Each structure stands twice: as structure tokens, then as C-alpha cells.
């Protein structure tokens, strides 16, 4: 099984093959290894690899994965095919953070210049302006003023 993740702007992939009795064959970045995983309940498991043992704790929040390894915390995003398609083809502009849309400055069909403000979003007293990454045409506007949106939600589509 292949699992694709997004780590900052990096695509990362892990391939797992069950070997039975809690053992797995792992391929990451072309390198093959073997690990053991023992479920401890409540979302915790003991991970044993060449480095030794670690207690892992993984929480799923939508596509996001919160990963705790002993006392270290990491956040990565699970990539699904739909998500990758959207990002590749649509030129969608996503909400950088959860917030309230305060202003919608463009309408579908409108041509915009690179850097032009398209939409403003407010969260916790901070305003964030979504700008056109390049010259183009607005294909669709996916949120209205006053609407509450989650982080990562597509707000404007350009082509």
C-alpha cells in the first residue's frame, strides 16, 4: 500500500507491505527497511525500527495528520487523488487559515493581473488578502462575504 503525504511543499511517499505479526516492510525514498508496530490503544502504538523504539500517536483531522513520536510533534497532510487533481489543474486559491470572508473583490469572468487582491479573509483580528498568483481569468468564486471557511478550502478558481 502506498501512502502519499504533503510536508510543506514536498511530496513524500511511504510504501507499506504487511509481513504479519505486527511486522511491516517499508519503502521510503527508494530505501527498504523493516519495522514493527504494536497497537497500545487510544491511538497509540509502539514503533520499533533500526533507530530503536518510539511511542507513536497519530490523530486524524480531515486530511491533516498530527504525529507525535515520543515527545516530538509533527504535522503533515495526507494527500488524496482528488486533492492532487484539484491543486494541479484548477489553479485554485485556498484559504491560508480558517476565518471569515470579509470582502470578495472579483467576479467570475473577470480578468485579473498578478498580485491583484481577490478576496480578504479575517481571523483573530488579522486580515489576510488572497492575491492572484499570475495574470488570468476568474473561473469561479467559491465563497461569499460573511461566510466562515475552514483552512485549505478553495476560495477562488483561476485559469
Amino acid at each position, binding site marked *: 500500500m502506498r501512502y502519499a503525504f504533503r*510536508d510543506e511543499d514536498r511530496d513524500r511517499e511511504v510504501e507499506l507491505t504487511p509481513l504479519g505479526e505486527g511486522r511491516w516492510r517499508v519503502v521510503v525514498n527508494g530505501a527498504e527497511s523493516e519495522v514493527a508496530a504494536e497497537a497500545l490503544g487510544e491511538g497509540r502504538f509502539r514503533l520499533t525500527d533500526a533507530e530503536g523504539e518510539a511511542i507513536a500517536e497519530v490523530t486524524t483531522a480531515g486530511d491533516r495528520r498530527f*504525529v507525535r513520536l515520543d515527545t516530538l510533534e509533527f504535522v503533515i497532510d495526507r494527500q488524496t487523488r*482528488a486533492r492532487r487533481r484539484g491543486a494541479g489543474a484548477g489553479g485554485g486559491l485556498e484559504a491560508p487559515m480558517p476565518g471569515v470572508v470579509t470582502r470578495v473583490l472579483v467576479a467570475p469572468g473577470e480578468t485579473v493581473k498578478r498580485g491583484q487582491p481577490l478576496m480578504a479573509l479575517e481571523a483573530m483580528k488579522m486580515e489576510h488578502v488572497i492575491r492572484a498568483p499570475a495574470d488570468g481569468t476568474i473561473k469561479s468564486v467559491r465563497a461569499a462575504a460573511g461566510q466562515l471557511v475552514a483552512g485549505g478550502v478553495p476560495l477562488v478558481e483561476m485559469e
Partner: protein
Amino acid sequence: MFSKVLIANRGEIACRIAATLREMAIRSVAVCSEADRGALHTRVADEVVTIGPAESRASYLNVAAILEAAKRAKAEAIHPGYGFLAENAAFAEAVENAGLVFIGPSPEHVRAMGDKRAARALAESAGVPVVPGAEGGDTDGLVRAAKAMGYPVMLKAALGGGGKGMQVAHDEAQLREAIESAGRLALSAFGDAALYLEKRLERPRHVEVQVLGDGRGEAISLFERECSLQRRHQKVIEESPSPGVDDAARRALSQAAIALARRVSYRGAGTLEFLVAPGGAFYFLEMNTRIQVEHPVTERVTGLDLVRLQVEIAATGELPIAQADVVSRGHAIEARLYAEDAAHGFLPQAGTALKVRWPRDPFVRVDAGIEAGDTVPVHYDPILAKIIAQGATREEALDRLATALDETCVHGVITNLPFLKALARAGEVRAARFDTEWIEREFLAGFTAVATAPVPERALIAAALAEAMGPAASASVDGAGPEGEGEPVPDVFATVGRWRLPGLE
């Protein structure tokens, strides 16, 4: 004593105030916005009144709605906490006009201290040093003033604010040049070329003194807190006592703070903020007329409950303790946990805190505004909790803080926990070699590089294993199934989390 008090706030400070009211056998009334229904601060209070829509303006800043809630609940006093209406003189006045007690200073003091120039004048009149400054005058006058206070100096429009057109001059030539351009700027921006000259302190520390006054001229000091670890003027880690002042400076700071509190007959708890220059000279900055976010470090070293003292002073008009009763022992240090992404410009975060686990160390206190399953709304200040460690020495307290941060786990909402962990272990923090600009000048770039470096393969493998092993190995609360293929990103706001009936806690 009051039998019922309304808490005009939310989050961790509302929970903190409710805890003391419970100890004092005073019934607590929480207020909440529609976005905060069922929030922890409403669950720990005895009663709750919904006061309006999510936006602060319509709820936590809505004076009429809060007074109406107090009247309906038959509360006798209002504790404003910090932020929101805590330093709003009109609110303090409206509370008093409604026949209720405002747990804080008089409206006049809230107003005077909120006006920087008035506060500066009051401090000067009490003999408290302020940052040397000179107003108006011609170029030669300003040059003479700069020479008297010593370079570098800062030049700004006398009528301006917010740092617009502010210029730094390191010598007379630079100053003469700056006067000309700043004067032109001031004239075009504010219609007045008058300039204000202020000594620029290089690498200052921020040290503040906690005071209590009875409103009739008596005031005492609960000593100082060191709050130099800041990012964009937002405090991150605070401690008491300050490792940056010696006993003589400590006494002098307390005496200055008491002098100002007595001079104005200050009532209740207040904090005087000072800038301390590397040589030890200190200057009054401003006075905060409310409970501070960082009050727990003072409580840890003095053993006093500041909220209880606020309530007692408000109820009786007397100081329940004398200066001789205040003794500082050991060391306490606090870290502020925020829902913000420290690796990416500290963007505020919201969502559901699916998993929350606090440290279990007996020498660590956690003032939290959330529990597992609670929603972190987008509308308010993103503070989630404060983690406060104490020890016999600073080193011990700091070790405990580092361990406590390691034990802390919040999943579901991105927090600044990695930033706090890195700070607690930084060499300069351990050696107490920092000033108010140190985080941004020397720490942040390195932290950001580490925080955005590739996630170790082990973490990726753990995430993949959690998927492969299914629910037994991963805590999932979204119910979207393991794949979630083609599903839209779940709208965290569509699920408000648990709902509870008011008062049924």
C-alpha cells in the same frame, strides 16, 4: 462579600476566575457568544448567559448585553478579566452606573492610564522615571535635548502615533537630517511639523511590577515579572523573579511602582511596565489596569491568589494583606500556548482540539481554556492555555517547564508548542541573556528553518502505519473514513462539538 459575580470574558482567564469564585463560595455567571456555546468557560461556571453572535463587537464587547445578563442573573459585581472590556473606562463607568461593582480600578484610573501622555505625566509627577523625551522646539533645541539624553534617539511626529514616520538617529548629523525629513513628513501627514524626541533604548528588557491598592492611598508591591521574551510585542514566556535585575534594582522598581499607585490612590490589581536598559536604568512605560495574562508566576512565588485579592478589595475597599505579608520564594516561569502556526508566520489557527493532554508534574500548573473535543473558534485571541512551572531555583523551574512542554499534547489544532519547546531549551534563555528583540533578532530564523525542514521519515512511517493499522492505531474523530477520497475538506465550523445545557455541569 458578594454572593454572585459575572465574568465578562471567555477562555482560560474566565475559567481561572471561576475557580477562585468557587473557592470563595461565590456563584459565578459566565457569558458566552453563540460561537462559544458549550465552551469550557461556560461548563465551569454555575450559570451561563448567551449574550450575542460570534463577533466580539456583538458579544464580549457588547456593554448593554453584558449589563443585561448581569441584571438577569442578579450578579452584584463584574470581573472583566483581561482584553475585551477590561480597560474600557466607559464600561467600568456603565457597570457602576448600573449599581454593580466593577472588580478593578475606578473608571478615572482606567481612562488616565489608557492615555499614554496622561500616564507619563502622572508617573513623572510621582517621581517615577520615564523614557527621556523632549517635545517641540526648533532644530537647535532638539539637538541640544538629544545631546543631553545621549544618542541614539528616536524622532517622531508629536501628533502621530503607531510609529508612523519614526526615525532613529545615532549622531548629530543624522539627527539634523532626520529633523528636516521627519518635520516634512509630520506636516504632510498630521498638518503639524512639531516633532517628539525620545531616547532609544538599545536591547532593553521588559520588567513589570504587580501592585495592589486600596483606592484610598495605600498600595503594596507583589514584586516583578520578567517579560522580555516577546515576539512583536506579544509576550511568550514570563517569569518571576526577573533574572535581569539585582536586589537593589528590584527594590527600586517596587518603590517606583508603589509611589505611582499611591500618588493616584489606585484601587485593585495593576501592573506597571518598565523598560530596563542594559546598565540597569529603568523607565516607566505604561500601567495596565487589570489582571495580566502572566499573573500566575506572581501567584506561584508569593503563594497569593490575585483574583481573590481583586475580589476582596472590590468588596471591602481594603487591602487584605500588608507589604510585610508578601514574600517571594523560589522561581516560577510561564509559557503561553497559542493556536498559531509558529513555523509559518504565526498564522492564527482554529478547529477542534481532538486530543488534549496536559503535564502531570506536581510543580506545574496549567490554566487552560479548552479540553479534548472543544472547538477553537476563529473569532477571538488564540490563547489556549498557560503552562506554569515552579522550582526552588530558576534552573529547576526552567527544567520543569521544558519537561512539562514535552508532556503536553494538543492534536487537531496547530499550536505554537514546538516554538515554546525550542525556547525553553535555548542556551540564551537558560542563561537569561535576552532582551525584548532577541527572539526576532536571533532566534526566529533558526527556529523557522528547523520547523519547516523535512519531517523525519520515521514520522511519515508512523502516519502511514496509523492508516494501515486502522482505528486501533489512530485517533480519528472526523468519521470521514480512512481514505476520505474525493471528500471535501471537512468544515470544522459545521460541527460545533458537544452541546451542554447551561448549569448542568
